[in-house]
């Protein structure tokens, strides 16, 4: 619905892809392009109208019936996004220790085969080059292709803070979203266990705090048989949806990062670390050509 302007990588933070800004005609400013801009404006207006209508028809019903889901947005927050959480990951500070992966596992108690973040190593062509490590959580895209394909609207982007979540009780486990995610951020819970989380293991009866639901993971029941993904540890948010680094309520990977490579914060707050880093450094996002507009940036 919102066009990607192609410059993507270093766009100003405050320039949220809100509909108003996208619709503003003549923002390219060039003389003689007014006509084109007006046409674009009308085109966009049409597109917006169509999607708005579809949203009103589809979304209203869907969200109306999502009342019981813990992850579902509340009515007042639907009208306005309060936060836009994201990360800026400094690959120059990452040493590839994988502490983020371990911290995430411990925090969310993810089973084998489910990794909310993953440290990948880029094998360099030149053996004298330093290796490039990259930790890769869910990017919580502005335009997530995964939520669009879900046949039952079980996965959606929260209005209040842009976090992409899964309603475990609604998800049928078709895995269409896994195919649609261009970043390998979604994993299916096949029901496997580590030795210490299996029956009679020390962690057997420790629930996962995910979504603040404290589910016991038992055979045949959610989240087994569901697709799972990074939630930016949203169970650590307070009532207002705020995180606090001082109180330790901070995504586990960012909190634990030994090289301080993972910066987390609110892109709507121009004074946040992540906003400042984007202003001061050159950042890239992965696969810009797909128009997904990830909320996780990398500094090279």
């Amino acid at each position, binding site marked *: 619905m919102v066009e990607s302007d192609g410059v993507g990588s270093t766009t100003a933070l405050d320039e949220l892809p809100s509909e108003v800004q996208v619709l503003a005609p003549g923002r390219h400013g060039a003389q003689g392009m007014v006509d084109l801009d007006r046409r674009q404006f009308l085109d966009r207006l049409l597109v917006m109208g169509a999607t708005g209508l579809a949203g009103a028809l*589809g979304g209203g019903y*869907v969200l109306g019936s999502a009342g019981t889901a813990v992850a579902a947005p509340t009515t007042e927050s639907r009208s306005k996004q309060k936060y836009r959480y994201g990360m800026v990951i400094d690959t120059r500070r990452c040493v590839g220790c994988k502490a983020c992966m371990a911290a995430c596992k411990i925090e969310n108690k993810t089973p*084998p085969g489910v990794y909310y973040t993953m440290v990948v190593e880029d094998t360099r062509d030149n053996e004298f080059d330093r290796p490039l490590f990259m930790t890769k959580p869910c990017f919580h895209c502005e335009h997530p292709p995964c939520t669009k*394909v*879900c046949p039952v609207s079980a996965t959606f982007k929260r209005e209040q803070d842009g976090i992409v979540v899964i309603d475990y009780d609604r998800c049928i486990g078709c895995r269409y979203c896994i195919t649609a995610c*261009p970043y*390998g951020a979604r994993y*299916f819970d096949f*029901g496997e266990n580590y030795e210490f989380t299996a029956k009679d293991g020390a962690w057997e009866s420790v629930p996962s705090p995910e979504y603040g639901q404290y589910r016991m993971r038992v055979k045949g029941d959610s989240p087994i048989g569901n697709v799972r993904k990074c939630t930016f540890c949203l169970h650590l948010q307070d009532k207002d949806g705020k995180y606090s680094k001082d109180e330790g309520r901070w995504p586990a990977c960012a909190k634990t990062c030994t090289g301080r490579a993972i910066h987390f914060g609110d892109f709507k707050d121009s004074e946040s670390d992540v906003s400042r880093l984007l202003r001061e450094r050159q950042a890239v996002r992965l696969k810009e050509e*797909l128009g997904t507009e990830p909320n996780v940036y990398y500094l090279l």
Partner: protein
Amino acid sequence: VEIWLKRLFWTGGTAFLAIGVLGWRDRLTNGQIHAGFGSVIPWGLWVAAYIFFIGLSAGSFLISALAYVFGMKRFESIGRIALFQALITLTLALLTTWVDIGHMGRALNVFAYPNFSSPMAWMIWLYTTYFVLLVVELWFLLRRDLVVGAKGTGFRAKFYSILSLGSHATSDESVVHDRKVVKALATIGVPVAIMFHGGVGALFGVVAARPGWNSGLFPILFLLSALASGGALLMLVSAIFQGGYHRNSETIVALGRLVLGLLVLDVIFQISEYLVAGYGNVPGHVEGLKMMFAGPYWWVFWVWQLVLGTAIPIAILATRKGRSARWASAAGGMIALGFIGVRLNIVIPALATEEIQGLTNAVDSSRISTQYFPSLMEWSVTLGIVGLGLLLFGLGEYLLPVDAEEVSHVSA
């Protein structure tokens, strides 16, 4: 020979179903823990089987429409069996998708919580429409024969009287009315079948994250391959059932010509897809193709799909051999089987590429791997579904008056 083929059919069906029981028990008690797919290749044998079955269904329905919508008398004799085949293969397609989802008990969420932007949701809604349409159309097609059959004695008569749902009319006017309903339903069914099968192509085609799928050719390719595979299976089926290839020889040969044309068209589309992708040589796009041509399962493409499913049957159907119903029906069987390879190669290679380089090396997990071979449980479940299909088809063919000629014989 028909007797021998029929015996093979019943033995095969029973054996497959027996094997399937083991797999289904594992699937229902242990979930998908024994499945071979993972989170890099999240779809495997079951999804391939699903598009195979749904293709057969759409194809055989559209061929029955040649008789009931377009009035092609030649195909009238196999119209009923085509429609019945469409119903059985649709059932199998629904079973394979159902077993594939992680929470089988939540399948109806697609109706309770619809998402209009999901091609998969649309598929399920269209299948439901199509299922109802097929059942109603088949009933109107068989109605008079059911009513007539119910007048006799014995088990079959009782069975027919239940199925006739209280209908009694046997007059010629009532049959004319039935035919009108059938024509109307078949006419509605044609766009529905095109929509849902083109839609399955779109289900894959819209996934921009998977360049191997993300092609505008996909919906068209799916329609062509549905028609070719559905028609091909129908050739084999009408050679075994309904009086076999002695009685249906002309229809089989005619169907053979139709299928040959569709298959050649399908091959041209596939070549077009490979050439355009290959020329561009964009890594994400050709990686899947390379795997298909030269990966560990190269033989699925070269031997199964190309030699057995395409080259040999084309050689049979395009030459004088194609005028013999026996050879033509064998070619039909080969094409239908070959399409299993086509379906596997649509689903798996496009998924078997890392979306982020290095992802599969980051952790040591069989679920995060570009290697996939269906597990024993997956094979067994699939065989069970095939077996069930064979038995359902055999029973229906035996019990229902789906044999149009035999019936017209009686009424004449």
